[in-house]
């Protein structure tokens, strides 16, 4: 089963969120609850958690790009 990695709703939808850093590479095992990706607004750094144990299957929004709240920026394939 695939789990979506989503820009969290705690960021204001009106703000541009920049994907700063993925903390795992595609194909790498990831553990639920750990930090997976760092995104920033002008004064806020947000850490998006791994949604489920598994493998980072896909990065849809690479580092350096902007994304809006609610956008799926990656997929984790569950174990």
């Amino acid at each position: 089963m695939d789990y979506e990695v989503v820009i969290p709703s705690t960021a204001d939808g009106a703000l541009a969120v920049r994907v700063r850093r993925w903390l795992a590479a595609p194909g790498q095992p990831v553990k639920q609850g750990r930090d997976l990706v760092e995104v920033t607004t002008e004064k806020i750094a947000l850490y998006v958690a791994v949604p489920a144990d598994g493998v980072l299957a896909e990065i849809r929004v690479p580092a350096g790009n902007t994304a809006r709240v609610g956008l799926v920026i990656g997929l984790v394939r569950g174990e």
Partner: protein
Amino acid sequence: MDGLWLDLGLVRYAPAFALQERALAARLAGRLPPLIVVQENPPTLTLGRDSSPDNILVSAAELAARGIELVEVNRGGDVTYHGPGQLIASPLLYLNDLGINANQYLHRLEDVLLEVLAWFGLQAERRAGYPGAWLGQAKVGAVGIGVRHGCTFHGLALNVDLDLAPFRLINPCGMAALPVTSVAAAGQRSVTMQSARLALRRALASAFDLRLADCHLADLSG
């Protein structure tokens, strides 16, 4: 909500930052109630996640010669200066408990800065598009936060009574020649760090509906 107030006093930024990370981990693990960490630091530049090296106007050697430490931190924003006489408060609070999003939380921190400044008779303002607290064209308080799993960290910095000269070594918050001021420089010469601490504590407790009790490092390690 009941919460804890941990005043570290004057401490180097890096170990205080490490302590905040540990406290955040404990908070996320459900081992800590709401916590506000307060500190002053020796001269330090911190680089937020959006920092550009171009915004430090002097060499690393000159910073070292002036006794200024350089620390990379996981908050939003660009480079800024911290030093003795500046109060930093870092609330570790769940946004869900507050019922607000990260951007609203940032504004709430600005409200706290404005309230503290009003307590000292200074009518500071927000400036659209330029987060922080402003006295005219000069910045007197800054905000910059991190959010991990819905819990906030980092927070606000208020210039109470500090040497403002080191701000000229950088483009504060990425803004060239940004005027920076303090409560004392704005005319409140008699301000004390103790009175600023009390005003800040009261404003934070009110803004986040917290009943704050003092705690000490030993309480956290137990």
